[in-house]
């Protein structure tokens, strides 16, 4: 990941919370506002009509104010939210299990084995990353890339191991990095139990997963040493699809066309990725040519664009005529 999403989410939780997964367990004083449950109607939906600043509570700058009360979730929304909590819990547990094996291999100085476990250990994480971004600086602690490290920072997390395994080929000092990573993942396990989930936040998170693909994975920036970007890509994609599947019944009512489009586009990206499968994983991304990367970008864009409308389409006052669509 890049540095900023984590702290962004924290702040968003404090200051806005309309769109965001928030943590009631988080001790930050500012966070009290964020721990209130937000219903979809409180979100930005109203801004689609382009309200002028200052015209009272409906003003666009009202989105900056905390409007964190409102109606409880409908049973349908409740189902989506529960389903998602089960999903993220399972994904985090999976990441923890494989990371334990990874750290074991690191401690045994078994570089070859550790390399086979590295990307796998990240799959669970990559599929739910936007949720994790709500937990203070947890995200940068476990997933900061080297390029995002500033002079004077301490660098921890998966990518430190990645560099040691592929670039330095030397695991000196990595035991400690591994232990810290496991501690941080334990924290994640605890945090997801109580994380506040709203359908809007889920939809925004799905869109962010696709952003991650488009800005980090497609370019090969994320896994600069291991070139396992396609594994992350697939995990991001699956995480987004899970959200879509859960929200489908709600979105269907407001914008059936959007749902149909998303189904097709998700399938297209899956198909495009299949080409690069190798064994139970994917080819190294440095073997994927520029023009192949371009083709991947195209399908990702084709999905990312409609997916960005999902959050709008699940608002209770939404119908597809409110959506800023150029095609329908």
């Amino acid at each position, binding site marked *: 990941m890049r540095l900023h999403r984590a702290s962004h989410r924290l*702040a968003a939780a404090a200051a*806005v919370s309309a769109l965001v997964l928030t943590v009631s367990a988080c001790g930050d004083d500012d966070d009290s506002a964020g721990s209130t449950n937000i219903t979809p109607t409180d979100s*930005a939906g109203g801004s689609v009509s*382009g309200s002028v*600043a200052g015209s009272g509570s409906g003003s*666009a*700058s009202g989105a900056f104010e905390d409007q964190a009360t409102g109606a409880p979730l409908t049973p349908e929304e409740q189902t989506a939210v529960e389903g998602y909590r089960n999903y993220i819990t399972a994904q985090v547990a999976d990441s923890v299990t494989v990371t334990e094996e990874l750290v074991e291999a690191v401690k045994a100085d078994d570089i070859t084995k550790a390399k086979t476990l590295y990307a796998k250990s990240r799959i669970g994480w990559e599929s739910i990353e936007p949720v994790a971004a709500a937990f203070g600086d947890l995200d940068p602690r476990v997933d900061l890339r080297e390029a995002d490290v500033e002079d004077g920072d301490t660098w921890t997390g998966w990518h430190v191991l990645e560099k040691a395994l592929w670039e330095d080929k030397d695991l000196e000092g990595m035991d400690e990095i591994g232990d810290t990573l496991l501690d941080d993942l334990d924290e994640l396990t605890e945090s997801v139990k109580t994380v506040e989930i709203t359908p809007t936040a889920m939809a925004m998170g799905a869109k962010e997963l696709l952003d991650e693909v488009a800005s980090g994975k497609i*370019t090969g920036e994320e896994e600069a040493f291991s070139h396992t970007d396609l594994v992350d890509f697939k995990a991001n994609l699956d995480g987004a699809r899970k959200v879509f599947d859960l929200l489908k019944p709600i979105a269907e009512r407001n914008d059936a066309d959007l749902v149909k489009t998303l189904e097709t586009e998700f399938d297209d990206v899956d198909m495009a990725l299949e080409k690069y499968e190798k064994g139970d994983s994917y080819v190294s991304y440095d073997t994927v040519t520029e023009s192949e990367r371009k083709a991947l970008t195209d399908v990702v864009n084709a999905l990312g*664009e409609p997916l960005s409308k999902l959050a709008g389409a699940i608002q209770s006052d939404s119908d597809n005529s409110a959506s800023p669509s150029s095609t329908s």
Partner: protein
Amino acid sequence: MSIDPSGDPNETPANELSAAVSRRRALGIAGIGAATIGGLGYAGREAVAGTEDRQLAKGGDSAPRGLPVAFRGEHQAGIATAVQDRLHFTTFDVKTENRGELVSLLQAWTRAAERMCSGLDALDPGAFPRIAEYPPGDTGEAIGLPPSRLTLTIGFGPSLFERGKRDRFGLKGRRPEALADLPKFAGDTLDPLRSGGDLAVQACADDPQVAVHAIRNLARIGFGTVSVRWSQLGFGKTSSTTPEQQTPRNLFGFKDGTNNPAGADTAAMDQHIWVGAEDNPAWMRGGSYLVARRIRMLVEIWDRTSLAEQEKIIGRDKREGSPAGQRLERDAVDMAAQPELAHVRLSSPDTNGGATMLRRGYSFVDGSDGLGRLDAGLFFLAYQRDPRTGFVTVQKSLSKNDVLNEYIRHTGSGVYACPPGVVAPDRWWGDTLLG
């Protein structure tokens, strides 16, 4: 017609007139007196005030479109000057080891720059030498175009003073402390081929062809002494130094430059932008420090972001430009209403110990990248009295926390000491340092 209220076209120096005349002849346009020419569309390029008069042309900074901005003055033009529409920014590596050659180049550049800013050919003889066996002295693409408020602003990079500890032109001891190398900021993905440079020239004009013409001719004059290191075109101003005018929008669709010091606010300029009369080194007094950053904007991803989120990230209303919680664009920023990590909150002088810069950036789109994404962004230019307490302070805060970072990448960087303006006719760019 006189294009400059303080300048009488009849006083045009002979050599400049001859350049003008030769061009006119080639164009097949009749008429010799500047007054006659003044009635034609390209009057601004042809008619020019004498040097003496031009230095008095105080009105230059707010010159109407098409007309020249005074080249000479206490401060270099192109900083406090009302922001023109187009940019061509270029940096150069100095190739010679000889200080005298560098000085000659700066003198030649000063002459050419002054000529071009007043609408003349770069050299005399210009585009049409009397002996046709010579190549033209001016490249010619600006023939017939008005001066378009062209300004040329020069700056000296750290590597001019020392390169890897090596004193290059006896300047090492004169390097300003404020011209420190910029630190690595979180998220920097800088391309060395789009960073640094011994010299930088910022060309701004309302017509892109006029800006490009100026850079091209300076580069040509410099062959053998300097070579172009990297350059950047900008097409849409993303900042304003003239609060009375409508604020332009950047490629994220937000008004940009609302809270920028006004170029005409001399008190603010003296306090934050110009190197003061007591500041050191003395050769920089009246000058300013420029930080340039090529910032790629991932527009495709930004465009998929909800309006509410976009506004939260910037800390301003998109339509009106008003700060969070306020009504109108010019309303004061209310920190209590600013989202925790909004760009405006994090960049504001209030959160940065008063750090204030004059932003003068431009949008760019350098075609697309190999992945079908626009290679678009903001070419960020900021002037300040001391970058250590200006840009560096602010960027430290932004690079760590600004949510905008998810949508941008810093891909190029430079810091330059821009010397004071040249006033007297025998002065030249950088003479306070090298003279």
